């Protein structure tokens, strides 16, 4: 027994088994999401979703996996060999690495990093590199165009995301994810930072290129996304796996820093099993919101995407940082946070509403009975 314990005391073995657990969890969630997305979208559309592969379509992800693995792995003859094979890994591995910083309970995570938040965003930004290399290595001008567009989108939307999260870490006074969760105490940060939460949701959707921000995938109808030349397991890594894993990572992060994570309510009092339930419930809630948005929205055009980020979300992020700073410096009570942030969110919503409405009314169709 002692030998076993001392084995696990070894830093490398300890890290290895934790990584394996996280890997298994991530794969399980990705499979669950492929099934769950189709069921949820089906329900929004008043239909059933997959029903025939296994009871209630549970084996659908297995069927998809088998289909993708059995496909021919095409590679263009003129594609750069090394970059072509490296690109899906470059897109996927950073997403997996972000899981290293996420604590799933008060005492369990792969590692508790004192700069966890910074690590998360630093590493997840490398995905953009993977897409870019994928597009360039395909030796296809449409893939290159699509890749540059995707990279531009990913990089632009990182900025307001980091600003919103930065504002939040100013409140919490730390970049350590465990500390942020514990500082929330009785009131999760979503109450104090509605504007920050809104920016986080928008930017999270864009970071994984999901509707309404999925022009990268949609342009493949016309011009071509970065993964146009990839097939079989490479495509699956680049598109499905990265997207769902990043979605899961961002949903977990959102529930940790905004919704109170494993701590609220009564996380510390009831033990680790309650904490696990809490965090997975909150993550599922955020995932449901993302899937709901996927089924509802149209996609916005690429120039509208960019102007939305730079002209709307970025100033809002700066406003949130400024407000937080103001309140912290003058040591105003907490409710001022809620009031100012809520007002800023309402003002932003109104500005969006007014800005998109242009000057003329929306219903420009009149009914004539004489004609």
């Amino acid at each position, binding site marked *: 027994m002692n030998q076993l314990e001392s084995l696990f005391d070894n830093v490398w073995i300890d890290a290895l088994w934790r990584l394996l657990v996280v890997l298994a969890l991530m794969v399980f969630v990705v499979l669950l999401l492929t099934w769950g997305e189709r069921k949820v979208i089906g*329900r*929004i559309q*008043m*239909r*059933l979703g997959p029903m025939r592969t296994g009871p209630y379509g549970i084996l659908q992800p297995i069927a998809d996996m088998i289909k993708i693995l059995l496909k021919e792995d095409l590679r263009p003859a003129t594609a750069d060999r090394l970059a072509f094979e490296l690109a899906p890994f470059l897109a996927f591995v950073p997403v997996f690495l972000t899981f290293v910083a996420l604590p799933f309970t008060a005492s369990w995570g792969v590692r508790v990093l004192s700069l966890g938040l910074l690590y998360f965003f630093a590493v997840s930004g490398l995905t953009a590199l993977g897409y870019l290399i994928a597009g360039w290595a395909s030796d296809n001008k449409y893939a290159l165009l699509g890749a540059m567009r995707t990279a531009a989108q990913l990089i632009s939307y990182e900025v307001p995301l980091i600003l919103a999260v930065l504002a939040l870490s100013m409140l919490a006074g730390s970049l350590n994810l465990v500390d942020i969760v514990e500082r929330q105490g009785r009131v999760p940060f979503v109450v104090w930072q509605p504007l920050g939460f809104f920016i986080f949701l928008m930017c999270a959707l864009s970071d994984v290129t999901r509707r309404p921000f999925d022009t990268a995938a949609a342009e493949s109808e016309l011009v071509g996304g970065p993964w146009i030349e990839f097939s079989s397991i490479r495509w699956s890594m680049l598109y499905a796996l990265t997207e769902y894993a990043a979605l899961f990572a961002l949903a977990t992060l959102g529930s940790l820093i905004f919704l109170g994570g494993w701590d609220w309510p009564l996380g510390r009092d009831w033990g680790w099993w309650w904490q696990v339930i809490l965090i997975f419930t909150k993550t599922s809630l955020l995932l449901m919101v993302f899937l709901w948005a996927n089924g*509802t*929205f149209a996609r916005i055009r690429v120039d509208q995407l960019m102007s939305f980020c730079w002209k709307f979300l970025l100033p809002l992020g700066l406003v949130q940082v400024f407000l937080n700073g103001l309140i912290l410096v003058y040591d105003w009570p907490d409710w001022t946070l809620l009031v100012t942030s809520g007002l800023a969110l309402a003002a932003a919503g109104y500005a969006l509403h007014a800005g998109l409405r242009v000057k003329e009314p929306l219903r420009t169709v009149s009914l004539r009975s004489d004609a």
Partner: protein
Amino acid sequence: MLGVLRGMAGTLLTMVRKPVTVQYPDVHKPLPERERGFPVLLWDHEVGEPFCTGCHACERACPTECISVTMKDNPLAAEGTSKRRKIVDRYLLDYGRCTRCRICVEVCNFSANAMNNTWQGHELSRYDRAELVMDLEQLLAQSKAKQIEPWVAP
């Protein structure tokens, strides 16, 4: 912003409605009696022969020329059991060309054919297009087995 939120509320509402899916291979939707499946020939159970006399009316009327008919002298008429002096000898209907326009049923003087209003009139997939050409026995099969109640237009 409001329009977006209204849209999201709309999809949330539809999420709780009952789905409209009919799970086809397990559940077959009931077909109305006027359903127009591919045409079949009818069997006269009293006499024991098809109603069709091979008069070529449907062959002439078909817009896509998918019917091919030949007639012969009716052996049962010589015996005296049937009033039909001529009877159909060979009847070929190409389901691959048929447009299910029902004109052949409309022009038939003997009410010898009908549109198949059962599911067998629709579940006719074949791997080879040549197998879609139906001959007399195949067209009479359902009526002989009394599995079809065709609809007669008023």
